[in-house]
């Protein structure tokens, strides 16, 4: 078992080497085929953890959503009761609507801004790497810290934003205290934090567009806008779609800034599904409803995941 070092084998006579190898081959016929034990040692830790901490919670969520718990903690079968209560609840539909509004407005804007940044930082110029890094850096900030930072900056009385806005003539704003401004301000925080991150994905997409298409278009006299319209955007369809789906599946579960800044307020203006689910579980201790809400969220996530897999899959098939 001591011939792993290649240099040591060079001194051994050919006959001896053949002999040794022959013995080995006789023992395990195909050296590339590992035993089940070996495969298990490599795979089981990761797979077991994924099963226990990813798959089992999904099952708990679905099964638990058919039960209810009384104040003594006793569980009893409730059938579709939790779902019926949720769907009959007007405030549930309000948070569905808020979540949809947040995502339908935010994600397309986010993709457009990220695309704009990618176009802006695509061609090399002096210090382009530094500019790209600068735009990316907010991403290293956690969502919760971004929420705290911006709630300080935008604090209507103590933050630095309002004096600046007043000085340039826009006037002081209520931001998170206003029913109409709270949600758009949340969106702005997300754009600040993640536009640079998605820009990197779109940059990679831009680099994959073959240069000769542009050269041909240039010879034909196409201007910058025409090239963008007829070459870049059609060629970028898949990366753009990927980023759109990815941002949506991230932002659908938007939670930390709502928990930290508004708690769903003012007057339900930022009441989104993930926060409502958290509240059902840890504030109202209604686990049946929390798990039913969780299951609804998981179903929606499944749809996004399926679309994402399809996008990734079709790319692989193409190459």
């Amino acid at each position, binding site marked *: 078992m001591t011939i792993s070092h290649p240099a040591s084998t060079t001194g051994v006579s050919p006959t001896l080497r053949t002999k040794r190898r022959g013995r080995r081959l006789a023992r395990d016929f195909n050296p590339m085929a590992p035993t089940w034990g070996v495969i298990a040692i490599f795979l089981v830790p990761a797979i077991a953890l994924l099963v226990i901490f990813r798959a089992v919670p999904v099952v708990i969520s679905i099964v638990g959503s058919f039960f209810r718990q009384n104040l003594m903690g006793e569980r009893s079968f409730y059938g579709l009761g939790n779902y019926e209560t949720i769907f009959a609840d007007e405030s549930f539909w309000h948070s569905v609507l808020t979540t949809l509004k947040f995502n339908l407005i935010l994600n397309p804007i986010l993709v457009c801004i990220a695309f704009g940044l990618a176009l802006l930082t695509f061609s090399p110029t002096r210090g382009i790497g530094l500019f790209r890094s600068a735009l990316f850096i907010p991403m290293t900030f956690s969502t919760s810290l971004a929420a*705290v930072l911006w709630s300080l900056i935008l604090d209507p009385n103590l933050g630095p934003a309002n004096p600046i806005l007043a000085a340039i003539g826009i006037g002081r704003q209520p931001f998170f205290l206003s029913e109409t401004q709270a949600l758009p301000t949340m969106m702005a925080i997300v754009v600040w934090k993640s536009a640079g991150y998605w820009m990197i994905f779109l940059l990679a997409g831009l680099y994959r567009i073959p240069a000769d298409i542009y050269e041909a278009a240039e010879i034909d006299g196409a201007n910058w806008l025409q090239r963008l319209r007829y070459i870049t955007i059609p060629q970028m369809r898949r990366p753009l779609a990927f980023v759109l789906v990815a941002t949506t599946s991230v932002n659908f579960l938007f939670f930390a800034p709502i*928990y930290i800044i508004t708690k769903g307020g003012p007057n339900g203006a930022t009441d989104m599904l993930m926060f409502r689910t958290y509240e059902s579980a840890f504030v109202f201790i209604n686990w049946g409803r929390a798990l039913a809400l969780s299951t609804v969220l998981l179903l929606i996530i499944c749809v996004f995941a399926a679309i994402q897999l399809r996008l990734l899959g079709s790319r692989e098939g193409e190459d």
Partner: protein
Amino acid sequence: MSSSTLAPPSGLTLVARRIALWGLSIAVLLPLLWLVLSSFRAPSEMFFHAGRFAWGLVVPEQLTFENYTSLFKTTNYGRALFNSLFVAVTAMFCGVILNAAAGFAFAVFEFPGRNWLFAFVLAAAMMPFEGIVIPLYLLVDAMGMIDTYPALIVPDLANGFVIFMFRQFFAALPRELYEAARVDGASWGTIFWRVAMPLSFPVVLTGSVMIFLHQFEAFFWPLVAAPSAERTVVQVAIAQTMSMEGTAWGHLFSSMTIASLVALVPFLIFQKYYIRSNVMTGIK
């Protein structure tokens, strides 16, 4: 070169582009600059400029370390920082080995059910962790692990994304490499540890940074899984400081500056690898 084909040609647009690059970069980084500068602001000056516009809004008149010294003297932040680092570093070391091993098995071994198992890994990678936090809490609670370090570390150790990244890398290495080592009598463990892992150092670095940041920046799970002050992590501690003592801004600034530096430094050092692998896994 393809890079130049998108560039607007005239000099005027080049100038406009530089202005846009500078303007956007400054606008994006200004809040962070404000944060860092404010962390050195004297408590007496904290809200002095809040009323009207002045340079003092951004630049403190005098610099002091008071916010830092009193942060560690009077609050639980030192403990939270230790917890965060302990959790993130432990998860990083265990996570990289565990996920790399699985990635290696998917790339090199052939066994029945491999594709199904890999599809399961991909599905897990697609599922945002926040989506299962509520049922996960019930599970971890039933295991009696709430408010322990394992509760913070173990549930998110296996990472489908990192497994996928390693699999892609190991599958791209020539098979002869493994075969030669195997014929020379190396065990699969040795091949993985001595041949595959050293070759995959860019993926190891990226995976490490990814897992470290993921754990260090987690908020929702630690919020519910570690409710006591002894197990609290930086992200939760900062959020609580904000809601409990609304005007302790000095402590907020210093604690956030420290927390963001812990995340920023590994990213800046390894950003080339980090960005490349992230993008390759996403787009390719």
